[in-house]
């Protein structure tokens, strides 16, 4: 309730004082889709510093992390963003899954506990976003209920969204499958790790910002 009131008062203040100082943009998606890799790529491109650590072990990001005043220039236009990188959303957490990545039992249990809290945090932060970039792994089946739930919640809250089909450098990647799964939304295929098609991403990001 408090969060809704805070968000409402912020919206009223920004409309009263005219142009927004910065746009709060959330990076959402399932675990290991490359949300932090993309946030890092953007932050490094425009501020010189990364936002968080990345890892092959799922649920590396277990707390919401921010980078404020990220000023992006694209084709002569400038926009300032607050980048909000969120923990991956999942419906199950099993500490034993982390053991396969060589994580010790104690650390795996701690990671699982933090990951459950991170998922709750991610969902609660949805309300505060002005626009969202949904990052999906283009080499995975896009018809997962988590993806559908995230997108459904954004639509229900009238939050503009952009779909990013990440990891297009992988052989198994299929952007068309992502487009076919969500034909109503713009999809940009990129590789955050390799920096592929970032121009197209920034163009889509500016188009997304216009909808805020």
């Amino acid at each position: 309730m408090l969060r809704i009131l805070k968000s409402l008062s912020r919206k009223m203040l920004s409309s009263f004082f005219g142009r927004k100082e910065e746009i709060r943009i959330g990076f959402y998606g399932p675990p290991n889709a490359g949300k932090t890799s993309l946030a890092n790529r953007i932050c490094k491109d425009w501020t010189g510093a990364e936002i968080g650590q990345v890892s092959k072990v799922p649920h590396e990001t277990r707390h919401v992390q921010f980078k404020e005043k990220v000023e992006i220039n694209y084709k002569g236009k400038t926009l300032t963003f607050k980048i909000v990188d969120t923990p991956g959303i999942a419906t199950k957490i099993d500490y034993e899954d982390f053991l396969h990545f060589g994580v010790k039992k104690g650390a795996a249990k701690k990671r699982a506990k933090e990951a459950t809290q991170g998922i709750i945090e991610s969902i609660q932060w949805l309300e505060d976003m002005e626009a969202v970039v949904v990052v999906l792994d283009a080499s995975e089946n896009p018809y997962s209920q988590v993806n559908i739930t995230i997108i459904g919640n954004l639509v229900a809250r009238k939050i503009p969204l952009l779909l990013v089909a990440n990891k297009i450098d992988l052989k198994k990647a299929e952007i068309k499958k992502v487009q076919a799964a969500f034909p109503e939304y713009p999809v940009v295929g990129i590789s955050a790790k390799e920096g592929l098609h970032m121009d197209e991403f920034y163009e889509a990001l500016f188009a997304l910002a216009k909808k805020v």
Partner: protein
Amino acid sequence: MKKNTLKGLSLQVIPFSEIENLSISERVKKLLTLVVAQKIVIIQGRLRPEEEARLIEDTMAMVDHIKNFKGMELAVIEPDMKDKDLWTKVRYGIAKRLVGESSALTIIGPCSLVREIKRDPKKIELLLTN
């Protein structure tokens, strides 16, 4: 409510009418109680997006507090309207607004029983753990 038991595998079929008048909290609590009790729940209809999000939130809170509960698998299958003519889409849209999404099916199962629910637009495949 119909209940079928097959060698330890319990399926619980819930008509939408049974949960339609419940609040979000009551609805999610009812579903999670069944999932924690190792039942695979099949709901006629679908939850609203905010209810699905709440279901994930409460599931995570339970993973933290209930020993050996590691979460759930969730999937919704809806009629494919992509290639239907405009009139069919309009009729479906009106029906959806009037009586809710009763033509959809929602499947929720504990991940200790349901390893994966493979979903593509036309079918749902339930992969159970050994």
